[in-house]
């Protein structure tokens, strides 16, 4: 079991977390679960077990209350992504405009092996061997008129 008390959280990060908690009524601290997870992921790159315990303690919740949120929302990841994480839209308009080919060519040029369909359900992110790039198919990014669309996030 991860020990939440041993984690060093930078003061600035904790300050931003406290500011996020203050946005909700004091009796509804649970609302801050998602903002805290976003802040954590932006800082550490992914949400490990220790994050789940630490955030649960911070919000006076059970760890399962945080874990269920992490596993429900596709944007929260429990494993690191690459330094540049590329999300590629595969939904209809992008799919018709070549979104699937973008993924194929990207994987070919980066030497990334994509997971099989059944594996992808639980592990959608594929990382290059050196950890520089990672790719992921996502659903509609709401820019269908400029298809195919990708979203690049650099850390």
């Amino acid at each position, binding site marked *: 079991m991860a020990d939440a008390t041993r984690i060093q959280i930078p003061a600035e990060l904790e300050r931003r977390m406290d500011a996020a908690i203050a946005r909700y009524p004091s009796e509804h601290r649970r609302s801050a679960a998602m903002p805290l997870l*976003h802040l954590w992921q932006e800082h550490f790159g992914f949400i490990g077990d220790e994050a789940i315990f630490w955030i649960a303690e911070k919000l006076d919740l059970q760890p399962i209350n945080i874990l269920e949120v992490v596993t429900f929302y596709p944007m929260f990841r429990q494993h690191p992504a690459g330094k540049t994480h590329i999300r590629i839209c595969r939904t209809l308009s992008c799919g018709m405009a070549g979104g699937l080919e973008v993924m194929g060519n990207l994987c070919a040029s980066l030497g990334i092996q994509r997971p099989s369909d059944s594996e992808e359900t639980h592990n959608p992110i594929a990382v290059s061997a050196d950890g520089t790039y990672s790719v992921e198919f996502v659903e509609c*990014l709401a820019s269908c008129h400029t298809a195919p669309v990708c979203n690049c996030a650099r850390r």
Partner: protein
Amino acid sequence: MSGQLPHRASVQLREKVNPESVADLLGNRESAIGNPELAWPPHPLEHRLVYKNIGRPGWTSDIDCYLRDGGYEQLRQALTLSRDDIVNKVKNSGLRGRGGAGFSCGLKWSFIKPDEKRPVYLICNADESEPGTFKDRYIIHEDPHQLLEGMLISCYALNAHTAYIYIRGEFPEGATILERAIEEARQHNFLGKNILGSGFDVEFYIHRGAGAYICGEETGLIESLEGKRGYPRIKPPYFPAVLGLYMCPTIVNNVETLCNIKHIIAMGGAEYARLGRPNNTGTRVLCVSGDVQRPGYFEVEVGAVTMGQLIHEMAGGLRLGRKLKAVIPGGSSAKVLRADERLKLKERQTDGSTVEREISIDDIPMDFDSLAAAGSMAGSGGVIVLDDSRDMVWALNNINKFYAHESCGQCTPCREGSLWMQKITDRMLRGGGVVEDPKTLKTIGDNIAGRTICAFGEACAWPTQSFVEKFPEEFAARAQKPVPPPLPPEYTPDELIEEESIPTVPMAHDPGWEKAGARGTI
């Protein structure tokens, strides 16, 4: 360890990526094509109201630019009116929600009791995720103060002192822009304590989603805002206005709907209602994507243009040598329309009588009631055009994948059915379609719609039901194999059972342990 955070993750949307060459995606350069050709000047058939400033030359998203253009005037005006006045104006305007369901905004608002003791919340639904829809993206990114002004007027009318903007996780830049806009508005005393000396206090907060389509459903959104999984709530109560966020009265409105509030105050309810058609008032932003030459956004008076005008004139028509095959008129959930189908549409005449007219899909006016009469829906305004090069089984499979991925998993028909439909279309694409498949698809769809807690059930069933119904020949062509005979009943030889049995030592608390002997097996 220093207290400094690393640079915030930079996020860049790459548009029109060239599938053949992904080099520009990997290099540190901006997207090769950059911003797409902006839809400016507006098409002559457009009526820009909410999108007045979108793509406008010289327009920036900061408050100074907005104020120079007469921004926040309607807020000042609204603060001099009584709350009932504003709600009545919205009622008279006939404004219908622009998020997808098309529910009357004034009616929704009137569910809030004037003498409500509990806190009232306003939530702006900026979880724009319906495939084919991208209207809210531009309002958030280019004209955030228009949204804030609409929300401020709404908060005042509803006596809501706190509002949350639930913005989808995939819009990190949008969230940053809105945060900045909120800060600017606070500095100008449009937000905070005693706004503009009116004695009214109001606070806005941003809440970022994290990639779940279901959080666009208003009760799913509220659950998500409460820090839980986005499971839509069981109805009744049918409206969060009764029990919403933190079990308090809550109004959830779409971004475009809230922007319209500002224009209703500016024009007056009755004047606004003269735009569009009766029961389909105002303007709305239609998003065209897919196989057209000039995909983009077009703000039109509701029902003022037909589908043919929208596709062939405004969106530049189909690519050279291609013919129209199908249109999905209101986001991927809307039922597909086939290009060559004829529809009977009842039209109300000015004298009150109705006349039935047979029309082609090109003649359907783009309004709520006409599209509903045509058997589909206006939905979120996302029009996806498919030309004759498209394989409809492939298209349905793509949509099915979306819904199978996005089903929240709460209700069995949807959780199992959406994946089942995807598996069938997957198999059909791989060449394993059996003759029963189209019928099975329809049956699964029929058993999801109407049997789930939220409208996602309909949203995932309608594409399958309509594709199979409207394009039977394409589905039949991919479903040619005979149904395999049922497998024989399972038979396991006794010696195998003997081999596979696991020896155990019977325990004193196992029933019958004394008879089991030394070689106990289970």
